[in-house]
């Protein structure tokens, strides 16, 4: 793959994601103030000592934004990747095996989807201990029902193709059929779904934080910061918009990269010459 073949839009996306990752990894070194350090007045305006101003408790918004990148990206990304691995694996097994296994997985999936996601998450998170990995796992499992739905639909279309039949006739095992025959032919729609699901994960995380079951204060996360500062909007203070914009920009950057990947994978000529 040549670097020149990557279009400008994808470069913008890559740059945005790189910046966010850089902030997340080196947060303690680049943040001007501590994560929960109260350094000034409540809702100080932009400029001066504080580039983005301060929040509802007088903490530096920029520092919290940088620290928040850590939790937000880590949790959302981990949950999305996990939900995709789980959803795709189960859906492909169901599509390839068919029969009883398919029925079992699909009906169980319907059962899960029948319960409102937020209420389900609230109940489970309220009962279980408040730890980060449990939060990620619950988000991943709830999200994987959606991935399962789309994954099974896409895989079924491919599973009836003659080249899959040819692989079966050759005597290939289920693993080969799933990973070598079906997966490469279903990547495009699944990648598109990945971009969307990641954005939803960030939003879901902030919803949970808002309800007190996501990231626990005083740790910063972008969704929680929107919540903390939302009352300021009434008084014309824009502090809540800054973490909101960060969420939007990261989502756009991810989708720019995903769009490019999707074009590459949807080309049947190995992605060569596709810009």
């Amino acid at each position, binding site marked *: 793959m040549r670097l020149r*073949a990557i279009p400008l839009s994808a470069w913008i996306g890559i740059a945005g994601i790189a910046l966010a990752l850089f902030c997340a990894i080196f947060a303690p070194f680049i943040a001007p103030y501590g994560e929960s350090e109260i350094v000034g007045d409540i809702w100080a305006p932009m400029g001066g000592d504080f580039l983005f101003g301060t929040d509802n408790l007088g903490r530096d918004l920029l520092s919290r934004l940088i620290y928040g990148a850590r939790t937000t990206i880590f949790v959302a990304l981990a949950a999305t990747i996990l939900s995709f691995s789980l959803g795709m694996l189960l859906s492909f097994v169901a599509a390839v095996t068919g029969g009883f296994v398919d029925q079992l997985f699909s009906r169980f999936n319907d059962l899960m989807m029948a319960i409102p996601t937020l209420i389900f998450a609230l109940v489970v998170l309220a009962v279980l201990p408040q730890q980060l990995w449990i939060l990620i796992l619950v988000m991943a499992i709830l999200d994987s029902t959606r991935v399962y739905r789309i994954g099974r639909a896409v895989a079924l279309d491919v599973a009836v193709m003659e080249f899959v039949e040819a692989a079966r*006739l*050759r005597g290939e095992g289920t693993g080969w059929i799933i990973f070598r025959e079906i997966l*490469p032919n279903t990547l495009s729609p699944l990648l598109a779904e990945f971009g969307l699901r990641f954005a939803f994960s960030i939003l879901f995380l902030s919803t949970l934080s808002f309800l007190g079951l996501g990231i626990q204060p005083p740790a910063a996360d972008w969704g929680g910061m929107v919540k903390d500062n939302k009352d300021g909007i009434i008084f014309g203070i824009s502090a809540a918009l800054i973490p909101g914009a960060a969420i939007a920009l990261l989502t756009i950057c991810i989708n720019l990269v995903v769009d490019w990947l999707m074009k590459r994978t949807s080309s049947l000529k190995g992605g060569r010459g596709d810009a």
Partner: protein
Amino acid sequence: MPERSKTDLLSVRNLKIEATSYPPGEPPKTVTLVEGVNFDVKKGKVIGLIGESGAGKSTIGLTALAYGRGGVRITGGEVLLDGQDLLKLDHAGIRKVRGAKVCYVAQSAAAAFNPAHRLGEQVIEASLRHGIMNRAEAEKRALHLFEVLGLPNPETFGQRYPHQVSGGQLQRAMTAMALCPNPELIVFDEPTTALDVTTQIDVLAAIKHAIEETHTAAIYITHDLAVVAQITDDILVLRHGKMVEYGTVKQIIEAPTQDYTRALVNVRGTGREEATDQSDTLLKVENITAGYSNGFKVLQNVSLHLPKGQTLAIVGESGSGKSTLARVITGLLPPQEGTVTFDGKPLPPALRGRKNEELRRIQMIYQMADTAMNPRQTVRNIVGRPLTFYFGMHGRQKTERVRELLDQIEMGERFLDRYPAELSGGQKQRVAIARALAAKPDLILCDEPTSALDPLVAEGILKLLLKLQEETHVSYMFITHDIAIVRAIADSVAVMHRGRLVRFGPKSKVLSPPFDDYTDLLLKSVPEMEIGWLEKVLKTRRMESAGN
């Protein structure tokens, strides 16, 4: 350029058609699809447009309606209908012509009818909308046309929905729809290509009878020269959007002047003697009865056998159970009764019970090479996988063997890293053959491997299969509906009809009299490259309209 005469209904002059293609990563390109095409259709006469896929025959046919399919633009020339240039008409003017003066019959009638409306309504719709006749007149004309086209129960035929009639009847209903507004010209776009041979002949006869009866001129588009010879007065041979030869049927069939036309006329020249030794049996199918879970038996009590190194052709119409038989032999569909014996040992009925060695010895080639190969794998991986899977080959050894196989299918190593989308239809089928060969099989099941290909390409594939059989002594079970292919390559023949074996034996016996009724019908339905063949056959054979 020929002068336009008074009797010409349609004159096409210097036609140029272009389209814009968008190759990924490059600026859009303008592609010329058709260039420099001239022809005339006289009143009441039929012209045949013939050529392989991509020759531009449908595109040219549609210009008679001043229509270009998605993205196709008519950029030059004239299309004169009764002296009026259709290309200069505005939108409203064109609408007056379409469906009134010029009508269209599509290849797939099943897709062209609206399944939610009754046939009768759809047949008279255009006439009513154009105000050509009132409802009573239109219904009367539709009834007359149903009779002329030999449709069963013409009085009530219009009451039916499209799914309630057969494919052959639907195609005739579509012809009735085109004829109903009393047009001056009809464009037939491969109207019989999707039909079985025994049905095709009825539809052909009906179309021919109807256009003679109504004195309508027609443009008949097909890739089958034998069909076009039966129905048209003139033939225009096309290739890559250019005219190859234009003349009367007699001249084209009997004295073609161009090499390409000559190749088309003589395309069915492949052939060989049948093997006589029937002793060394490789595959034996005994009393197979098979069906799907709804209880319908697709195969009933089928028994046949195939000697080593020979070819068994399975012939029959769609729905006769040919492909199901292949599924039973591969183990994809375990039979309800009966056994499959391979090289003296019984094969486990289900795929799951078979060992890799048993799977290796039976390989399969599919009709559609497009869907039979993973579009995400290169030729190297497609052909190389059986080598790794069955023989544990890796690295250089594997690459060497893939190269050898590519040489065997006459393609060469420059194709190693291509994806299927970068191959032509014939090349794809060759790669599929190489994949089958890679397993060093004793038997290859060929499920209509040439029926989706153009005649000249198909002939190349058949020759290749014969050559490979000589080199490797592989046996073929060749499923087809084309008697010409059977004549060309088979040693023994099995004729199937509605899930039963009608006739089985050496080719010379099966294809020579005395015949049973079905084999007789089948053999007589295959169009021959001979003018007047249709009339001759129809005399000896009653119309089987009711059944088709």
